[in-house]
């Protein structure tokens, strides 16, 4: 069971999330370690600097700079609920940039749940602000819907 989707939060804000939800054939403990240990994070995500799994901890990921943006993704641990939930703020970019390096003030949330075959990991990267409101996008929507469908059908390969 796995999928990746882009979903919109139409009611409250003009924000969009990326969601990946997959079952891993491992215990919650090992999965928790993989997502909250700096060295292990570096092996599958990006190498964090100054990371500790403690609420309020500030750490960075370093990536390619763009324009006025130095390429640092500035993060802050928001929630640490062992074996259940881990969330951090993901901020970066600059207002002067378009596309790559554009300003981001987002949140990454990992949620773990034990299932028969292992552990289900759900990642939601939320807070991508797109210019839309309900009526504009519901009514004219075809182009947009097509875009979103394209993204939604990108299935994460299991194994």
């Amino acid at each position: 069971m796995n999928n990746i989707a882009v979903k919109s939060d139409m009611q409250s804000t003009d924000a969009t999330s990326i969601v990946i939800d997959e079952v891993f054939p491992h215990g919650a403990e090992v999965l928790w370690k993989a997502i909250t240990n700096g060295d292990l994070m570096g092996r599958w995500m990006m190498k964090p600097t100054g990371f500790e799994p403690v609420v309020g901890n500030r750490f960075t990921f370093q990536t390619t700079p763009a324009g006025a943006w130095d390429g640092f993704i500035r993060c802050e641990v928001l929630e640490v609920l062992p074996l259940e939930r881990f969330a951090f703020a993901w901020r970066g970019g600059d207002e002067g940039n378009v596309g790559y390096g554009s300003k981001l003030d987002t949140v990454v949330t990992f949620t773990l749940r034990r299932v028969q075959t292992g552990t289900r990991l759900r990642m939601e990267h939320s807070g991508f602000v797109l210019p839309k409101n309900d009526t504009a996008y519901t009514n004219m929507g075809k182009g947009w819907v097509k875009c979103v469908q394209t993204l939604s059908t990108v299935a994460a390969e299991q194994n």
Partner: protein
Amino acid sequence: MTNVMSMNAEPIDISAVMRALADPTRRAVFERVAGGKEITVAELTKGSGVTQGAISQHLKSLKQAGLVIERPEGRNVYYRAQPEGLTPLADWMNHYSAFWRDNFDRLRAVLREIDP
């Protein structure tokens, strides 16, 4: 190594699209253009509560953002929506979708290694 959105490079003019649709009136204009097949400035102005000049300005911005295209015919100019204009938004999100999808693949491999 892993580098978020490192496949960037292409000048995706997402902010032009965002700017164009940030204005509620302009968004409403876009919505009306997209709602039908083709429409003229005069038709758009009718019942809109704003002047024809204002509508023209909005159309100009939408055109620059690649969201509408125009077709002159005689004295009239017909406008229609160009849904492809919205793809920069999708592309932008696509960077992150791909990033996380790759991450999950790598995570799976790491887990297999540390917990065989």
